[in-house]
C-alpha cells in the first residue's frame, strides 16, 4: 500500500464523518432542495470525465470520456439550476408574508 493511497483513505474516512455531521439537523422543509443540492455536488464526476478524455487515445476511450463529460455536465449544471429554482421560491414567499396574514 502506497503512502498516497493511505492518504486518500484518510480523506475518505474523515469525509464520511463530515458528511453525516453537516446535515444532521435539517428541517423536513429542506429535504427536497438538499437532495437536489447534494445531487449537484456529485456532478463533480464531470472532472473525472475530463481527466479520462484529456488522456484518451483511440476511438473507444475518447467516446467513453466524451459521454462521461456530457453526463457529468448535465448532472452538474442541471443540479445547481434546479436547486436554485426551488430555493428561489422559498425566498420569494417572504415578501407577501407581512401583508398576507389575516
Amino acid at each position, binding site marked *: 500500500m502506497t503512502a498516497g493511497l493511505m492518504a486518500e483513505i484518510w480523506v475518505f474516512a474523515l469525509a464520511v464523518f463530515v458528511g453525516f455531521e453537516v446535515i444532521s439537523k*435539517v428541517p423536513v422543509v429542506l429535504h427536497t432542495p438538499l437532495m437536489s443540492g447534494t445531487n449537484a455536488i456529485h456532478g463533480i464526476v464531470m472532472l473525472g470525465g475530463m481527466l479520462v478524455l484529456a488522456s484518451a487515445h483511440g476511438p473507444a476511450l475518447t467516446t467513453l470520456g466524451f459521454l462521461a463529460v456530457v453526463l457529468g455536465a448535465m448532472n452538474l449544471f442541471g443540479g445547481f439550476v434546479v436547486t436554485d429554482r426551488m430555493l428561489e421560491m*422559498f425566498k420569494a*414567499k417572504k415578501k407577501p408574508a407581512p401583508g398576507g396574514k389575516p
Partner: protein
Amino acid sequence: MTFVFEFLYLLAAVLFIVGLKFLSSPARARQGNTLAAVGMTVATVTLLASMLMSPEPVTPGNLRLIAIAIAVGAVAGAVGARRVAMTDMPQMVAILNGCGGGSAALISTAEFLHMSHARAGADTMFGCIIGSISFSGSVVAFAKLQGLVSEKAINSPVQKVVNALLFAGLLGLVGMLAFSGGGAPAFYALLGVSLAFGVLMVMPIGGADMPVVISLLNSFTGLAVAATGFVLQNNALIISGTLVGASGTLLTMLMCKAMNRSLANVLFAGFGSAPTATGGSIAGATKSVREVSVDDAAVLLANIQSLIIVPGYGMAVAQAQHSVRELADLLAKKGVDVKYAIHPVAGRMPGHMNVLLAEANVPYDQLFDLDQINPDFERADVALVIGANDVVNPAARSDKTSPIYGMPILDADKSRHVIVIKRSMNPGFAGIDNALYYEPRTSMLFGDAKGAVSKLVEAVKTL
C-alpha cells in the same frame, strides 16, 4: 505548482462543506447552493489549469472535445432544469442522478480499458457496479414517476430468485476480476449484471416510496464518484463523492423515519403491491359516503372561524396550488383563520409540498408541520383535505393490520367537519382504503382538485 492546485482543490472542498451546511438551514439555503456552485467552478478551473500546465499537456483536439462535451451537457442540463415543472421535480432529480451514476460507470470502464490489465482494482469495480446500479435504478425510478412504467409495486417470488442469482453472478465476476483476471469480457459482464441489478432493485418498489429510493440512489452515485476519485487519484472527487454518499445516506434514513419505516422495509416489502385486506368489507356496498355540493361547501367554509387545509399530491398533480391560495385568501378576508398542515411526506418527496405552496406564494407562516398542527385539529371547524389520502388515514393510528400502521398522520379526523376533495373513491397511492371517508363528519366533494377548488372560489365570491 502542484501545491497550488492541491490548495485550490481543498478550497473547493471547503466550499462544498460550507455549502451543504448552509443548505440545511432555511435562511441560508440558497447561499449554500451558490457556494457549492462556486466551489465547483474553482475545482473545474483548477483541473483545466493543471491539464494545460502538466508535463504532457492535453492535446488541442482533446481539449476541444472537452469544451464541446461540457457545453452540450451544460445546455441540456440547464435548459431541462429551467423548464421542468415544480411538480415533476422528483423525476428531474432522478434523471440527473442517473446521469452522474452513468458518468461514474463510464469513467471506471474507460480506466479499466486504459490500464489494459486482465484484473481490475477494487475501486474500479466499485465505481462500475455502484455507478451502473445508480444509473439503471434512476432510469426506472424516472420511468415510474413519469408514468411510463406501472407505478404499482411489482413483486413476485421469481424475482427474488433472479436477484439472488444476479448477486451470486456479481460476486463471481468480482472474484474473477480481482484474482484470476477475466479481462474485458468479464468486465463487460460485470457492467451488464450491475445494470440489471439496478432495474430489478427499483422495479418492485411502489410509487409512494420513490423519494426514499431516489435519495438512496443519490448517495450511491456519491459513493461511485468517490470510487472514481480513488481510480483517478483525485482528492476533490473523493471528498465530494463521500460527502454526498454520507449525507445522502443520513437523508435517506431521515426520510424513512418520517414514514416510520425501516429502509429494508421500503426496499423489500413490496409496499402497496396488492390491495390489502384492511377493512376488507370496504367494497362500497356496505359503507356509504356523504357527498356535498360545491355551494354547500362554500357556505360552510365562509361561515367558520378556523380552517386547516391538508394538501396532498393530488393537489400538486392538478396544479391546484394557485386556486387553493386564492380560496384561502378569500376566506381569510371573511375572517376565517386559515392554516396549512404539511405532512413530512406529502407530495412525492419530503418538502415537496412546501416548494409547491411556495411557488403559489402561500405565506410561509401559514404552513405548519405535523407536530405543530396536530393539536389544532381538535379546535378546527373544518379540515379541507385536497388530494391527500394516506397521510390522513386513521388506520395508521388504530389498525395494526394496515400496512401504514404506525406512520405519523395528520389528525384531520379530529376536527368538527372534514371536507375531502377527491376525484373518485379509488384508493390512493399506496392502494389502501381510507376509513376517514366513511366517517359521519366527513363530506366528499368529488372532482379534480383544480376544478373543485376553482368552483369553490367562484361560489365563495358570490356569497
